[in-house]
């Protein structure tokens, strides 16, 4: 079959792929840049835990659900008020952020890495290996992630690591499927055939060609995964099956929100809003990243 492309024979303007100045990329993607700024601010906020406020996250300083900008027993200023046990919400928010971010970054990192490897190998090997791996992936995909995570955390213990491993399992199935289908398309492209014709070994094809070309997909999967992991961790902790009190997490800060809402709406609003803002910022960055990396928008003009 003859294929005539509509693109002209002219030489595209010279713009090295990864060397475009960062500021230009940011200017072209203002929403992504905004997301990045929000994320940096939030990270600074979290990293300043212990400096920003003089309080301890597990000390009762006031009565139940003290309102925002109120004073505690010893006349401390509680900027965001107190929680159901009268602990400083602001301080807790900062400490909880650490847990959320550690889990939010580690779980998808683990999951996407594993998913990428499984996806590429499954696509490249094909045959029985692919068939079997994909059946297991089918099962992983059909299990609601939170439920799977509950079972796994139960096994591994309700620790940060338990939650990380449990949540990474959710990512493995989905990401390996996406990477597999991408790698499958890639491995049928002629450049992979060319490498084989040159005598490249399977390992070389996987590491020099398929893996680098799947990185964009994996990176986007990772950013999506961060938002999802932060939300999922919050969900688990909210149910009391994730990070255990007194260690604060954005999720477990909400556990008693329903009961204490009447005393102060901020208990329910602040942690949830924080999660929403973080996830929103991550999504903005993820969307721009997708635009930047999307092969459809690149190259062929």
């Amino acid at each position: 079959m003859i294929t005539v492309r509509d693109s002209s024979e002219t030489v595209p303007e010279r713009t090295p792929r990864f060397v475009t100045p960062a500021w230009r990329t940011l200017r072209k993607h203002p929403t992504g840049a905004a997301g990045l700024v929000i994320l940096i601010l939030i990270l600074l906020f979290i990293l300043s835990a212990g400096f920003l406020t003089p309080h301890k996250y597990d000390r009762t300083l006031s009565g139940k659900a003290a309102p925002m900008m109120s004073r505690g027993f010893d006349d401390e200023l509680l900027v965001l008020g107190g929680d159901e046990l009268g602990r400083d919400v602001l301080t807790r928010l900062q400490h909880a952020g650490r847990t959320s971010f550690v889990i939010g970054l580690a779980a998808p990192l683990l999951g996407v890495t594993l998913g990428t490897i499984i996806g590429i190998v499954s696509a490249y090997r094909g045959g029985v290996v692919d068939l079997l791996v994909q059946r297991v992936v089918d099962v992983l995909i059909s299990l609601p992630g939170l439920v799977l995570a509950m079972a796994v955390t139960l096994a591994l213990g309700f620790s940060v690591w338990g939650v990380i491993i449990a949540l990474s399992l959710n990512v493995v199935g989905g990401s390996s499927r996406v990477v597999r289908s991408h790698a499958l398309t890639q491995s049928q492209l002629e450049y992979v055939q060319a490498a084989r014709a040159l005598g490249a070994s399977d390992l070389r094809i996987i590491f020099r060609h398929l893996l680098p070309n799947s990185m964009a997909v994996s990176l986007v999967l990772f950013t999506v995964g961060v938002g999802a992991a932060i939300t999922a961790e919050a969900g688990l902790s909210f149910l009391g099956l994730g990070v255990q009190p007194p260690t604060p997490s954005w999720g477990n800060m909400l556990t008693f929100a329903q009961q204490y809402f009447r005393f102060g709406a901020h208990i329910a609003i602040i942690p949830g809003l924080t999660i929403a803002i973080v996830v929103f910022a991550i999504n903005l960055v993820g969307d721009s990243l997708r635009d930047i990396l999307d092969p459809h928008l690149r190259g062929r003009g």
Partner: protein
Amino acid sequence: MPLLEIEDLKTYFYGDDTVVKAVDGITYDIEEGETVALVGESGCGKSVSSLSILGLIPSPPGRIVDGEVRFRGTDLLQLSASEMRRYRSRRIAMVFQEPMSSLNPVINIETQLTEGMMTQLGLTKRQASDRALELLETVGISDPERRLKQFPHEFSGGMRQRVMIAIALSCEPDLIIADEPTTSLDVTIQAQILDLMQTLTRERGMALLLITHNLGVVARYVERINIMYAGRIIEHGSSTDIFEKPSHPYTVGLLNSIPRIDRDTRSSLDPIPGQPPDLSRLPIGCHFAERCRNVIDRCENEYPHTVVVEPSHSSACWAAVSVFSDYAAQPSHA
């Protein structure tokens, strides 16, 4: 009065900080019942110019910046959207390059064939279906009753292009614009489709605008040829003019680039060096100057005027006449 007159048509595409001058002032016409070709390589603006006629340019980013497209004297560019709609397929119909993607995959052939007739000619569903049946027979599809109920994926490439032709014929237009109608088809099917189009348009007295990158195809089917390069028409003439007395260096280069089945020396090709210019950064002078063998100083600074070589034959080249004499002097073409 010609059936269709295009005058100084300009269609630009606006990017972030670039303007792609896809069609940069082209003028040509088509007489009633005539077959005319618009020839050029990919990216020269030939498809954009044909889509501009019916206002089918994707907009944004595309915009018709200037010019007139007169159909029997009416400037189509001045029409409102709903007036323009009435010209589509009723007066001017189109056949596109990719029969694979030009038919809607989830709608059956009957609906795709009848909907135009129902909208444009006010036929009832029954009448339109009867006509659809006839049309399929006309374009050489056997067992039309069964075929009507089928979906595009059940047709081969050649058959889909026949369906496209049936759709184009359905409202009895005065002009059919065929944009690379055979490019994605196999060689033996190409001949079938082109022959079919020629026969059907001749029988019905329809004019045909054949847009193609293949100068060879044109020789067999058309009366007049317009050659486009980088957004402009650089040579226009009758079929014999173009093939026997090419007067633009680009046309000559193109003729020398076509692998010919009737010549057998192994290296008779004489390619044009270099690449076409970037349409967003066109030179001030002749667009072809950079690749031209006959280039003179003037070419770099000033876009050539159209030189009338013979009454029906013109060329946008400062050296039009000498180009032809050089061509004629080469033994292989004598």
